[in-house]
């Protein structure tokens, strides 16, 4: 994508005034767009089929059909920008096509910054993925479906070949395309710790650590039945963080 081509935007929001406000702000920008509107997930799907959309502005709190239904239809190179009024958990992009997260009423400077990201090449996009906070939510593809996951709901991450399995506090177990290295570099240190070559745990949920065979340790986590094994080389790290 380069700066000269006109982008096709799709605004998905069930409130007409919200759409018209966003449209007005977009028009104030110094860029060329074709703007499409959809007042429901159904209408949005139709537009996505008919038009070559570049960016979808999606209100995630839309009543009726959930925005998730639409997410299945938005694959790269289509980008998503979430628009919401308020959320206790800031949503952080974890997927290449989830560009940004805007708050209503949308600030034009924030919008400029969101657009700026689109013109970065994919390699650069990865670099700007910053460390996550403990009260963030992440947007990611799990078991082939997009989901929002609260960072503090993750109990454990396990490697599974080239993938990773994440375990959350509601008992769910999901497969992601992320690698252990990616998780380790982005998860907040005040909550997560690698305890084994193939395991990362949320140590705030650790209830017990006991010596185990071969200088390893057995770690119990609330919400997970089987204790996990910690290798000795990671022991000092977890001890230091847990105080």
């Amino acid at each position, binding site marked *: 994508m380069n700066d000269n081509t006109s982008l096709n935007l799709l605004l998905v929001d069930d409130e007409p005034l919200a759409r018209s406000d966003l449209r007005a702000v977009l028009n104030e920008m110094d860029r060329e767009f074709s703007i499409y509107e959809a007042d429901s997930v159904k209408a949005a799907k139709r537009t996505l089929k008919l038009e070559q959309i570049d960016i979808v502005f999606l209100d995630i709190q839309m009543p009726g059909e959930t925005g998730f239904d639409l997410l299945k239809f938005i694959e790269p190179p289509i980008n998503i920008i979430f628009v919401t009024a308020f959320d206790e958990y800031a949503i952080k992009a974890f997927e290449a096509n989830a560009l940004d997260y805007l708050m209503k009423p949308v600030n034009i400077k924030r919008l400029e910054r969101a657009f700026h990201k689109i013109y970065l090449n994919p390699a650069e996009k990865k670099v700007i993925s910053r460390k996550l906070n403990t009260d963030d939510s992440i947007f990611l593809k799990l078991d082939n479906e997009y989901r929002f996951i609260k960072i503090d709901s993750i109990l454990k991450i396990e490697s599974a070949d080239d993938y990773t399995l994440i375990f959350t506090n509601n008992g769910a177990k999901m497969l992601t395309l992320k690698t252990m290295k990616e998780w380790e570099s982005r998860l907040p240190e005040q909550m997560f710790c690698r305890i084994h070559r193939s395991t990362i745990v949320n140590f705030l949920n650790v209830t017990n*650590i006991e010596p185990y065979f071969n200088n390893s340790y057995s770690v119990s986590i609330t919400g997970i039945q089987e204790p996990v094994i910690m290798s000795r080389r990671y022991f000092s790290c977890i001890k230091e963080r847990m105080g």
Partner: protein
Amino acid sequence: MVVSFMPYKRKILFWLLQIFYWSLYFIYSIQFVHNYEYYLRNAIPSHLLVYLFFFCYMGIPFSLILRFTYNKIRARSNSLPLLIITIVAGSILLAHLWFLEVIILDNIVEYLGHRVHPYTWQYYGWEIFSASMLLVGWSSLYLLIKFWEEWNEQKSISENAVLLAENAQLKMLRYQLNPHFLFNSLGSLRALIREDQDRAINMVTKMSEYMRYSLLSKSHTKVPLDEELEAIRNYLEIEKVRFDDKIEILYNINQRARKFLVPGFILHPVVENALKYGMQTSPFPLVININVTLYKSKLIVEIINSGSWCISKDNSMGTGTGLQNVQNRLKVTYPKTHKFKIDKLKGTVRVLIEIENDEE
């Protein structure tokens, strides 16, 4: 934070103190080692020390028995007199067992070739007394440390409770402020300023009134029902601006009920819920009925919406917590004179609230 290096550390600490206590006794007894020469004839000093060593550290098993007993008793009752009686009786009883062990030890010593002086009543009395005191001392130290630990734990628990209560209050405040609603409305308002200034002006008035009620009304003081209904009306008017012709509201309010005193923000969450879940499940337009009547001294409020009952998947702000909050407050304010009922019917959801004020 629950960190569990603790039990491990505590075990080590217990045994360190244990060794320390009994070693202190041993070292203290060494100065009297010559007294034992009287009892153990023709023993050389190093043998005496070995004898003394066994004699002193024999207390350890008894202390463990005491610990076991105290933990058992304290798990069942909190009575201090019972504990004191157990300390004294247990210590004297175990002192006798200790003495029995000393006799066995002496027999072994005799077998090894030393002659043991026959016991006297004075010796018996002194041994029982000193052993009892030693065990009472041990018990006191053990229980003091235990009590101190528990007191500390209790302190952190009560500190936590205060924190939780403050948190709940903060949540209620945030709920009344309704940030989601506020920012959505501001967004719509900005659009209206561009498109239809008369409607924008109208919306600003309604928003101000609604926000004033949200911020100034305290959830623990009562307001006339009229004020609560006015806030609900403003709220719904604003939502109507946002959702256009997708909502229809029908009011049916008995004039006599208007002065009835209710806790502020007691009906609002129910209406908000009806709107939120109605929008998700009802065919358009969503119809919300608000019926208020007075029967004798009883206020009867019915809030009915088209659509169906649903449990939301996301647990963000306001979902379900709104109704939960109303229910809890009714329970606190009208422990016996309230009724809260949810009817999940086909195509409609009805919430019924009945309140009776005591003396108003």
